């Protein structure tokens, strides 16, 4: 018990020190990783020139931002190549191409990270477990127990789906800890939580349709009277809205509050506490809540 507490303290102190260094030494400037279009450097520091209002504008309405400030080379915001950006412009239009480019790049990074992690744990696993193996066995066992308790012992094959959802949301929420522009949480973009929500609720309806048959499934919408059917359908859609906007609102809200308060305090120390709460604590809880809700909605339909 004592060593457990000590290790948690060590992690917190290391995190605190790293943030302190970043806060003091690079006050008001940010670390860039990529290729600098002007000098060709791979890693460089740059003084922040944008004000807080500009950053919020850019996060929410990139279309208007590009228009309002007459940005000449918007592809520099993507920290990627110009050719790829041109393809994105053809697909999405000028401003939204930036956010879409960043989103796709972040999702690609996360996918590669998760696949490598899975392979690493798979091939490094042994009978005498290493520390990282113990952690992931605990996580797997925890979700497996939840699934078995909620859906029943014979439905343990759903564990993989819910574990993937949990780990994806968890890692994407925690990716905000890297202080590199262009790396932002994929869950901050509304499209990702909406996609996850549609996937979870769609799975529920597909399995319910397969279990009940089409007539009983349609009867479920006509309760208690036939005329209530439109409102029942709105109720089903509102499930998707509430499950996805909960995740989106928490992560997006945390990002905006961190941005505003850290620029009001000139990035001194305060961002550490905000990151501790919004990213590490709320991010983990929201990932768990999303998984639990998807699991419970599924159990409502397929458990007798």
């Amino acid at each position, binding site marked *: 018990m004592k060593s457990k507490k000590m290790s948690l303290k060590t992690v917190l102190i290391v995190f605190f020190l790293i943030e302190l260094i970043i806060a003091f030494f690079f006050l008001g400037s940010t670390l860039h990783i990529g290729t600098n279009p002007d000098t060709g450097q791979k890693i460089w520091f740059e003084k922040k020139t944008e004000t807080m209002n500009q950053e919020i504008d850019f996060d929410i309405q990139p279309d208007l931002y590009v228009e309002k400030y007459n940005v000449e080379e918007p592809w520099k915001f993507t920290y990627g190549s110009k050719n790829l950006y041109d393809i994105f412009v053809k697909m999405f239009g000028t401003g939204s191409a930036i956010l879409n480019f960043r989103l796709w790049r972040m999702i690609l990074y996360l996918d590669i990270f998760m696949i490598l992690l899975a392979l690493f744990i798979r091939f490094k696993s042994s009978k005498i477990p290493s520390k990282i193996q113990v952690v992931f066995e605990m996580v797997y066992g925890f979700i497996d127990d939840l699934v078995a308790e909620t859906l029943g012992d014979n439905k343990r094959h759903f564990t993989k789906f819910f574990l993937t959802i949990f780990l994806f949301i968890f890692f994407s929420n925690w990716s905000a800890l890297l202080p590199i522009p262009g790396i932002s949480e994929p869950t901050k973009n509304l499209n990702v939580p909406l996609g996850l929500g549609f996937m979870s609720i769609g799975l529920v309806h597909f399995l319910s349709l397969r279990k009940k048959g089409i007539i009983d499934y349609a009867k479920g919408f006509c309760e208690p009277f036939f005329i209530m059917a439109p409102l029942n359908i709105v109720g089903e859609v*509102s499930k998707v*809205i509430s499950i996805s906007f909960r995740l989106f609102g928490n992560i997006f809200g945390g990002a905006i509050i961190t941005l505003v308060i850290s620029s009001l305090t000139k990035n001194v120390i305060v961002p550490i506490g905000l990151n501790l709460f919004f990213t590490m604590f709320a991010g983990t809880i929201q990932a768990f809540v999303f998984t639990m809700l998807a699991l419970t909605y599924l159990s409502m339909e397929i458990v007798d």
Partner: protein
Amino acid sequence: MIVQADILKVFLYLGAALSTGIASLSAGYGEGFAAAHTARAMMRQPNANNNLTRTMLISQAIVESGAIFALVISMLLLFGGFTSRETDWAKAFSLLGAGLAIGLGCTGPNFGSGYSAGMAIDGIARNPSKSGRITANMLIGQAITESGTIFSLVISLLLLYTVPAQMEDPTLMKIIVKSCAYLTAGLVIGIGTFGPGAGIGYVAGKANISISKHSKDQGLITRTMFLGAAVSESTAIYALVVAFLLIFVS
């Protein structure tokens, strides 16, 4: 019908103040309720204080998320660059409506999830060995309690970002009607989610107590809780539908 920049600021500041002010009122009460029950529970089960403190912190984080949504809407109203464009009266009222929607809208859910948290902590004090199950049920209960807050957040974001800054071919009557519609869209979702939020919180709290008494029937209790919550939630969905109609079809 362009609003002067100074008068637009009055609307923005009023919206920002009302949203965070009203939201903090209920969030503070909810978190205090959870903390008070934790203090009483510790007297009963001093050995389980680790469990109790952890559950209290998690539940308070969830209760607080309503206030965080309100704070975000305030920040967006204050720093979101709404003063930089010329806006007409309908947009100004929609900005005020956005603040009112999230401020009023998280009142009921915050009271409800605070109650649910307090009851869960009582349940843990009664039966500390089942604290994992009770905490999981508390999280689900608080999450569905909060759907009212989420609906309000959706309406607030719609009022902030889908309402155009200037109307096409404005007439005086049209602007009066639109202003009224946007303001009442914020009010209907704000007032309409009060009852469902508090009600679902009551359902979730009682379910937490039941699980501590009969932890074998956890699946049945959770499903019954969901059924009750879905029925109570239907009135919040009516409010959401009316708000959508007011924004898009008025």
